[in-house]
């Protein structure tokens, strides 16, 4: 039991219990987006505009986040530029002392708006890339003309001098474009490129047949990334999210549940990760009702998979349990039907051979039709 409800009391109590303060917060400002990428990480049930937190509440949450120990704020969505108050939110985040990163497709950012974001103190921009040419990018984003506008936005970003990360999301249909994506990052003078092979959560789950790379493609991507790291050392940093179902061991998801970061959904629900709402047994607190510190340290959803007590075999006696924490809880939910199971993307999981067979089946499927992400229903 917590004795006090003041943030500093909660923090002291958290320390005693071994709960570290979080470092990063993903603020999903809206689920609205001009694009409709078939791998969108937003939940299938999208929050309507009239359920979104207002400016004042976000500003309060940014202050609470800084008090809690958050250093890095990622403004995301949906498309965060769809929020009319984006510039105001960036100002408030900087005032709260947060390092402020904008995760955007670029659509909705004019040159003037970028200049306003610059003046407001925006620290960094992460620009998504759906493909390296208009044909691929506009098909995947489901938005004609999107690629051309994105390239214009990239020019403006360079002119202003924002530090840039290019976020290339790759899958079976565009992995052959990876070398060009890396070249584009260099041309845009990006300091980083994040090469992320699609993770199968959210809308991507319905598109596994069309998007899952083959095992050969996944290995090729790893080779390309390793070579580019060497070739561009000191100039371009490559971060890599390897293929999901083709690994031998699971990912250290979120750096450990409830240890490093948190997400806030557009309606104010506070989530341990962006896919956590797929675990139907979890109950989420809302920033409208509670202080962020209280939610982080004593919220039921955050405490559900902290530590090791929830683990089953083979995780419980596994030598890697402190390294990967049993993998991803949402993937365990999706593939094993049990959020406390060993992530089936682990060779020690009893479901391992089934998972490998499914990966083979998905990645060689002739069904390449995409199910695009929907838009939030209007009020």
């Amino acid at each position, binding site marked *: 039991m917590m004795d006090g409800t003041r943030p500093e009391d909660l*923090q002291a109590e958290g320390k005693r219990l071994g709960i570290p*303060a979080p*470092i990063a917060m993903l603020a999903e400002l809206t689920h609205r987006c001009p694009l409709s990428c078939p791998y969108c990480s937003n939940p299938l049930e999208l929050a309507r505009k009239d359920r979104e937190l207002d400016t004042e509440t976000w500003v309060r949450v940014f202050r609470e986040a800084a*008090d*809690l*120990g958050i*250093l*890095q704020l*990622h403004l995301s969505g949906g498309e965060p530029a769809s929020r009319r108050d984006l510039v105001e939110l960036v100002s408030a985040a900087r005032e709260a*002392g947060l*390092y402020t*990163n904008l995760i955007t497709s670029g659509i909705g950012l004019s040159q003037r708006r970028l200049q306003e974001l610059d003046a407001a103190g925006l*620290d*960094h921009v*992460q620009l998504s890339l759906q493909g390296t040419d208009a044909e691929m990018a506009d098909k995947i984003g489901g938005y004609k003309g999107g690629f051309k506008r994105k390239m214009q936005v990239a020019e403006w970003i360079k002119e202003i*001098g*924002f*530090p840039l*990360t290019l976020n290339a999301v790759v899958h079976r249909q565009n992995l052959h474009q990876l070398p060009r994506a890396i070249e584009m990052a260099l041309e845009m003078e990006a*300091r*980083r490129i994040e090469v992320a092979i699609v993770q199968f959560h959210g809308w991507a789950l319905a598109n596994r047949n069309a998007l899952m790379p083959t095992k050969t493609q996944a290995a090729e991507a790893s080779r390309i990334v390793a070579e580019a790291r060497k070739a561009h*050392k*000191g*100039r*371009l*940093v490559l*971060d890599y999210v390897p293929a999901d179902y083709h690994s031998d061991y699971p990912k250290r998801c979120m750096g450990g549940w409830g240890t490093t970061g948190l997400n806030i959904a557009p309606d104010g629900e506070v989530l341990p990760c962006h896919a956590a709402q797929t675990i139907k047994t979890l109950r989420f607190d809302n920033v409208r009702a509670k202080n962020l510190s209280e939610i982080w340290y004593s919220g039921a959803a955050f405490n559900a998979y902290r530590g090791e007590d929830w683990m089953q075999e083979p995780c419980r006696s596994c030598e890697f349990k402190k390294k990967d924490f049993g993998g991803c809880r949402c993937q365990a939910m999706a593939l094993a039907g049990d959020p406390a199971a060993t992530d089936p993307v682990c060779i020690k999981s009893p479901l391992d051979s089934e998972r490998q067979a499914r990966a083979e089946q998905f990645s060689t499927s002739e069904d390449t039709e995409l199910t695009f992400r929907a838009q939030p229903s209007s009020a």
Partner: protein
Amino acid sequence: MTGSVAPEAVPVLPRGVRLHYDRVRDQWVLLAPERAVALDAIGHAILKEIDGSRAFGSIVRGLAETYGAPEDQVAQDAGGFLRGLMDRRFLETI
């Protein structure tokens, strides 16, 4: 990798990389795109000397004097530290 930065090179934190005092954890951190690097006392002592005009050699002499350590040792340690930051694009030289 041998940690070397030329004495005449002027290290500078590029836009989007800054020192920040983390009041919750009571420590200095280097904030950079999608990264926060916790700094120990030595790391902080080196980085707080970087002002975009002082050359590395001058920074080394100052640190050697302040901490009573041999200059070549300081140059090697601080150079290695800064080179690591340069590889991650958290630092540039002009």
